[in-house]
């Protein structure tokens, strides 16, 4: 009948806060599935595969062919890695830690064990493989370890390995050009992986993480600068250095590339610039969905098939002694890689903005002090990195060819092809990014991007239609055909006009994306 009476005012401060407890009762997590997978992988995959390889090497003769043995061992290792990541129980965790250590020791043993060819000659490929196998297990172990002392030890070991590898690779490569190709390159890449793992494990807040990142960046900058200096000296014969124009073409470019890679990776590991922070998150979110793995694996398989067909064709022809130049053209150019390039772009970009719009995380993102341009560029950069990673196997198989075949070939088309890939990729990814910013529906943006890719391919096909060819549009449009850019790049040439048209296309799409983001303020 009347408004409420004021009874004694409750004093919320007097009310005792209970102890903070977890929201649910926690029981010991038993990762049954992971364990089954781990044991199965060990018993049916890794162990027989390893035995097959060992028997093959010692000449005892195995019932399983060595090719199958390797395949089984790889699948087995993947299963074991999954188990190691999931099962955090003390004994199992430590066992996997020791497993990782064994691989490291194996790698060292390969490096120092004297073979007939000399000390360290046995390192490739098995020592290197051991290194690559050891790292993910060490990573997983250090992540799962909750005893800070052990964790710190693991991080130190990984870090020390990285320093040694990078040191050997970069210094050795800088001194001897012969060492740089294959050994130096591979060692310094592995070193970079180990050092990145160290920094990533400890985080940029911690001292060791920050120092590792800075170290990587500093070394990279130093190596790149030294290589640039030496290339200049060698090319022009300054300061009494003997003229050697060939230095720049191989070692110089490679070392500058390596140094820059180190510098960029080091900076992006520790930098607190918003662009870098956003890019790291974007990259991480790629790897949190199965999409990234599917794309990477599919591309690796495609590259493998391409390589197998190529190798078969090469060895069936004139024999391995004479490689048809330019070999890269025959290796990459084909129907399947193009189809996958077309499919991969929408898959990589469709999520970028539309997902943030759908879940409304764009609102919290845009209410922190961050420029629209940084947001757009960070997403673009992350997608570009994924795009390049997907194509990397094509290059890696060729390094394998170089090592296995033993014959040098003209690798410059490969460099120009990767440059062309970077340039045309940036135009395609920027287009996908733009379509993604238009809608909050992933599917819609994906379909739009795929249509855009088909139009881009259409620019290539235009040439074959006589009706259009007579118009003035055809020459204009073919400048935007990425297939033409790839084709000429695979023959070892980059045509400036096509490069510029693709770069301007990329800039146009990026600009449009920034404007779309800004458009919410135009209402």
């Amino acid at each position, binding site marked *: *009948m009347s408004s409420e009476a004021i009874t004694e005012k409750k004093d919320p401060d007097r009310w005792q806060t209970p102890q903070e407890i977890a929201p649910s009762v926690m029981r010991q997590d038993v990762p049954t599935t992971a364990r089954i997978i781990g044991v199965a992988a060990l018993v049916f995959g890794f162990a027989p595969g390893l035995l097959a390889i060992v028997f093959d090497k010692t000449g005892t003769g195995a019932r399983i062919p060595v090719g199958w043995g390797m395949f089984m061992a790889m699948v087995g290792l993947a299963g074991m890695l999954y188990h190691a990541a999931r099962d955090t129980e003390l004994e199992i965790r430590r066992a996997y830690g020791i497993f990782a250590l064994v691989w490291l020791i194996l790698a060292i043993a390969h490096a120092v064990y004297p073979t007939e060819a000399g000390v360290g000659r046995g390192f490739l490929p098995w020592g290197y493989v051991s290194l690559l196998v050891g790292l993910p297990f060490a990573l997983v172990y250090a992540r799962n370890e909750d005893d800070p002392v052990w964790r710190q030890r693991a991080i130190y070991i990984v870090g020390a390995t990285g320093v040694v590898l990078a040191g050997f690779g970069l210094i050795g490569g800088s001194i001897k050009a012969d060492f740089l190709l294959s050994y130096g390159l591979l060692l310094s890449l592995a070193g970079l992986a180990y050092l990145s793992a160290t920094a990533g494990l400890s985080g940029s807040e911690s001292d060791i993480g920050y120092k590792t990142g800075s170290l990587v960046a500093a070394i990279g900058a130093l190596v790149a600068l030294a290589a640039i200096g030496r290339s200049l000296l060698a090319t022009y014969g300054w300061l009494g250095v003997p003229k050697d124009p060939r230095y720049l073409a191989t070692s110089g470019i490679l070392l500058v590339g390596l140094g820059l890679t180190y510098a960029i990776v080091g900076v992006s590991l520790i930098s*607190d610039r918003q662009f870098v922070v956003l890019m790291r998150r974007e990259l991480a979110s790629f790897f949190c*969905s199965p999409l990234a793995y599917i794309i990477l694996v599919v591309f690796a398989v495609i590259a493998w098939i391409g390589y197998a067909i190529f190798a078969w064709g090469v060895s069936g022809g004139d024999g391995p002694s004479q490689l048809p130049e330019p070999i890269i053209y025959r290796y990459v150019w084909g129907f399947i890689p193009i189809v996958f390039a077309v499919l991969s772009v929408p898959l990589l970009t469709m999520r970028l903005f539309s997902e943030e719009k759908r879940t409304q995380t764009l609102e919290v993102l845009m209410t922190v002090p961050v*420029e629209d341009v940084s947001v757009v560029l960070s997403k673009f950069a992350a997608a570009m990195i994924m795009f390049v990673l997907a194509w990397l196997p094509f290059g890696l198989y060729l390094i394998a060819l170089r090592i296995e075949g033993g014959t040098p070939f003209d690798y410059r088309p490969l460099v120009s092809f990767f440059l062309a890939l970077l340039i045309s990729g940036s135009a395609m990814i920027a287009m996908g990014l733009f379509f993604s910013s238009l809608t909050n529906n992933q599917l819609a943006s994906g379909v739009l991007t795929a249509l855009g890719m088909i139009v881009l391919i259409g620019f290539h096909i235009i040439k074959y239609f006589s009706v259009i060819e007579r118009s003035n549009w055809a020459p204009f449009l073919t400048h935007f055909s990425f297939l033409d850019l790839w084709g000429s790049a695979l023959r070892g040439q980059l045509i400036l006009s096509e490069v510029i048209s693709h770069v301007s296309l990329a800039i146009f799409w990026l600009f449009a994306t920034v404007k779309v983001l800004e458009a919410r303020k135009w*209402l």
Partner: protein
Amino acid sequence: MIQVDNLSKFFGPVMAVDHISFEVGKGEIVGFLGPNGAGKTTTMRILTSYLPATSGIVKVAGFDVMNQSLDVRKNIGYLPDTVPLYPEMRVEEYLTYRAKLKGVDRKERPKRLETVLEHFRVREVRRRLIGTLSHGYRQRVGLADALIHDPPILILDEPTGGLDPLQIRETLKTIRNLKGKHTILLSTHILSQVEDACDRVIIINRGRIGLDKKLDDLAKERATFMVEVRGPKDQVAHVLETTDGVDEIKAEALSDGITSFEVHPKTDDDLREALFSRIAKNGWTIRRLDLVRRRLEYHFVNLVVHDQTTSFKPEKEPVTEPNTAVQAAKNGA
């Protein structure tokens, strides 16, 4: 810290905010009240510079939201009502990421992280994936994020939505503890929360500000006295009316000889003892005697219903059937 001058916002033909003006001073905690769709969220989004205003000037921390958006954003911590978070990140990772994005110094970060984990009681779930958290935890992670860079101004859109009663108390307590250091604008439609936590209340309805008052001032409004007496109705009424300082009374007979009186005083004096002694002198017995002030709910309901009835009246007379709360409020008036 927050100055809103003649702000209005249209979404196409729909007017969400209609020329509102208000100010929030440094260190104030202001409750932003209103029914659903009143324009609270829109106003807050404009304050954070996420949405542009159709007209009007909004300044936050002295910066214009339209032209100095980055400076505005540096000074605010914002919690949207939907609490959008990245489900694939861990709580700790997410908060560290946000701290980096908001420019918290590398050395400061672990300290700030610990502080907000403690403040909003999410330490227990720091290693959990955000996607696996319950609604209440997500809400608190959002709050922790809003506070991680220690901003001078906090804009919280329904910070207690989805929390259980204990967590609501806890969160309000935390918000109250931020008083003085931070200027806080929080929206809610739970009135008791405003009374618990805020210094001032702004009630917004249909895009307009209906009430903008300090809670202290509201409390100072003249009280009424409720008396329930067993005795002859008319005599008791006469005695009460003749007590010094009484302006007018309303009587209502209850069951078995008890009458309820509403006594309105002329001044701010407390008449309870005087009333008691007058009644006791006559030998009647008192069942209830207390002092009643209008609570926020009265103002809120009055404002919203009044607004609706006045604006609907020309079309059809009895559109809104006043509910019991309204009835009670009207009786009280």
